[in-house]
């Protein structure tokens, strides 16, 4: 039976069919749905871990324990998990272990465009890359066989276009597998110098064995067509290349992208007149070819930045331009915005109003950086808001004029250690935790603070206030505020900024998109009362605009189809012009 599946769904199907027992991940676009789909199979234990390092370590433990295991993460998540990643290359596996990492060329939803293939090279681990959903399933299954055969974790590299593109997948039965017998093996599993010194040559030999395997692996294939151009490519770039050259070119389509087979690449290069290497982001395959002395066209004409497409290849390789029509008007951008009713809106309005330096973090609330809120000074990576603020204040001594802003899930991911650093080293910074009771940006995943697991089972209640107190914040300086009341928030912030001790202000209100969050009737503008002062425009609500009323005068207007009646505009309006429509 065939079914149209997203790449991520097909990876999950591959896990199921390969008899995988254990999945531990942290959400991150575009990898999130792999674990969500995996969780739908009763046969697979699947969980959200607080961060990617914990997730991968849990999977390594499951593998040691004899079960097939998997962790998924986005490319920057692999930075967090890099520590266990490099070491597990030395230990090898018990049950098969696959680590799914989804890169985001084009940065559809990421803060950088790093190429995860460098991790495979750096950690000396094999990496496979599928080109479509059918390969997502097939490669995932094969990776488990190879993981056990070569005693190594495999990295499954995806990109946004493969993760989020759907095509037909053939469904097969699950191969149930017994848990392997556990034998204590410290020489292999205890990585201290004496043991690791003996494991390193094993890693090198394994890599050589895998390069030999690559030569006739079903993961790689040669498709001969016209021989004027030979394309070496992998992943979705293969699809773009096929679209452009069809059968006029020959292809070496790589599925095992690390290690590469020198013999295979030399033979292919010898069979064609010229070689083009087509790969998004860095010139990894290209560098390998050049190291062999093979002349190739690659990053000399193709970009290092952004996502590829058939149009880009046609333009750069064939000099062809598309035939297009367009209107003469300038089309305004439509950037993402905080949703109507978003509890973060009132926080950023208040922070901007108070003129604070805001050390930001990763989540929906990063949108607090854009106009008209424009309240965020810095954003780097998960957890950096708190740690970076500490350094900023140690240098500048501006504890009274600066805050860190971090989401609930991000705080659990890697904010706690930053807070410990502030307390341990005598800082007095103020940390604002935006507790919207969910992991929002990636599409509503549970986290350790929500009381539910990935499988929607009840989880023990973990109290954010208790965590902060336990880390050493004085309970008198752990404040909980409703961000829908900006005046109250401002008062609390003033007190805590003035205090000469570390403080935490928890802004607690559930995400407006969560099921069960009450939507109030839409608001409307009393045309008599509105004085066109635009105070309501400062909060960047997508429902409010200035438009000509019945009398032709420009006044505030609410789009009732979007408004959820959160009332923040009522807090802004000095003339009480916003009233309830009483319907919805």
């Amino acid at each position, binding site marked *: 039976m065939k079914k149209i599946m997203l790449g991520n769904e097909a990876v999950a199907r591959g896990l199921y069919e390969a008899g995988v027992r254990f999945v531990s991940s942290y959400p991150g676009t575009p990898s999130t749905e792999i674990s969500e789909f995996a969780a739908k199979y009763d046969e697979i234990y699947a969980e959200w871990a607080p961060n990617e390092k914990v997730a991968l370590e849990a999977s390594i433990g499951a593998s040691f324990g004899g079960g097939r295991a998997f962790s998924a993460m986005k490319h920057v998540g692999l930075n967090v998990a890099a520590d266990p990643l490099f070491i597990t290359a030395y230990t090898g596996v018990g049950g098969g272990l696959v680590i799914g990492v989804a890169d985001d060329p084009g940065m*559809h939803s990421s803060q950088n465009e790093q190429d995860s293939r460098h991790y495979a090279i750096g950690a000396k681990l094999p990496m496979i890359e599928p080109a*479509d959903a059918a390969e997502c399933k097939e490669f995932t299954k094969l990776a488990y066989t190879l993981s056990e055969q070569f005693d190594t974790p495999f990295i499954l590299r995806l990109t946004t276009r493969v993760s989020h593109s759907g095509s037909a997948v053939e469904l097969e039965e699950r191969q149930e597998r017994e848990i392997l017998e556990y034998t204590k093996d410290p020489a292999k599993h205890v990585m201290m110098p004496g043991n690791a010194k003996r494991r390193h040559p094993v890693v090198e030999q394994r890599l050589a064995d895998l390069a030999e395997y690559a030569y006739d692996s079903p993961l790689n294939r040669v498709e001969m067509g016209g021989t004027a151009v030979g394309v070496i490519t992998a992943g979705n770039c293969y699809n*773009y290349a096929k679209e452009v050259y069809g059968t006029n070119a020959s292809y070496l389509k790589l599925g095992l992208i690390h290690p590469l087979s020198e013999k295979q690449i030399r033979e292919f290069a010898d069979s064609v007149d010229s070689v083009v290497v087509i790969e998004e982001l860095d010139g990894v395959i290209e560098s390998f070819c050049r190291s062999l002395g093979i002349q190739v066209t690659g990053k000399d004409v193709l970009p290092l930045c952004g996502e590829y497409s*058939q*149009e880009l290849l046609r333009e750069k390789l064939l000099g062809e331009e598309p035939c297009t029509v*367009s209107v003469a008007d300038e089309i305004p*951008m439509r950037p*993402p915005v905080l949703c109507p009713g978003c509890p973060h809106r009132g926080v950023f309005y208040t922070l901007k109003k108070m003129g604070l330096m805001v050390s930001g973090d990763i989540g929906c609330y990063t*949108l607090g950086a854009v106009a008209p809120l424009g309240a965020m000074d810095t954003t780097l990576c998960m957890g950096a808001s708190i740690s970076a603020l500490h350094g900023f204040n140690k240098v500048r001594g501006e504890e009274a004029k600066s805050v860190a802003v971090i989401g609930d899930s991000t705080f659990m991911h890697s904010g706690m250690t930053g807070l410990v650093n502030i307390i341990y080293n005598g800082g007095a910074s103020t940390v604002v935790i935006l507790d919207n009771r969910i992991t929002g940006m990636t599409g509503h995943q549970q986290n350790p603070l929500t009381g539910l697991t990935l499988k929607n089972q009840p989880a023990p209640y973990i109290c954010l206030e208790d965590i902060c107190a336990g880390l050493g914040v004085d309970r008198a300086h752990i404040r909980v505020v409703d961000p829908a009341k900006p005046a109250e928030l401002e008062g609390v912030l003033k007190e805590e900024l003035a205090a000469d001790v570390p403080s935490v202000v928890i802004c607690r209100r559930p995400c407006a998109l969560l099921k069960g969050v009450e939507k109030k009737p839409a608001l409307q503008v009393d045309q008599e009362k509105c004085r066109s002062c635009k105070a309501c425009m400062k909060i960047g609500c997508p429902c409010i605009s200035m438009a000509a009323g019945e009398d032709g005068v420009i006044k505030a207007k609410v789009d009732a189809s979007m408004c959820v009646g959160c009332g923040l505009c009522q807090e802004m309006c000095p003339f009480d012009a916003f009233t309830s429509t009483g319907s919805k």
Partner: protein
Amino acid sequence: MTTKNIMIVGVGGQGSLLASRILGAAATADGYAVKISEVHGMSQRGGSVVTYVRYGKAVSSPVICQGEADVILSFELLEAARWLPFLRPGGTLITATQEINPMPVIIGAAQYPADLAEKIRELGVQIIAADAAAIAEEAGNGRAANVALIGLGAHVLGFDTEVLRSAVEACVPAKAKEINLRAFDMAAAHQKDQ
């Protein structure tokens, strides 16, 4: 046949994912190979979103580029204008007439261009512009505007109307089936009357 390229464009949260699944189901029912490409994450937060559906004997790339789309289904007028360069010469643009101001317009940093449907028509583009939300509203729920849009394009999407209708039936949640089928039928009839 050559690969058929359909783009669905709109504003995050308008239901373009369901629309792409309906088209994918119709293509599968007709025995075609199909690829659907969507983008999740940041763009969902009220940003500009685009979904690609390609079907035919064999499909390589999952994306559609400038000058390649046979049909663009647009949920919103500004988005129709934004993605217009992706339409191939002789392609058809089907757009809802709804206008949603983006944040640069809301804060007064940019203007929402006037008379976009007319301007696109003047370029010689085949355009079908209708109030899809009103049709859906009349059918029982404005949220069925995505299915109404498919109904408006039923004659150019490359499927028999019955195949499309069955795909709608198969893809929408059971409790919304009746309203969505009504929206589809009304939109298809609306187009025939034009």
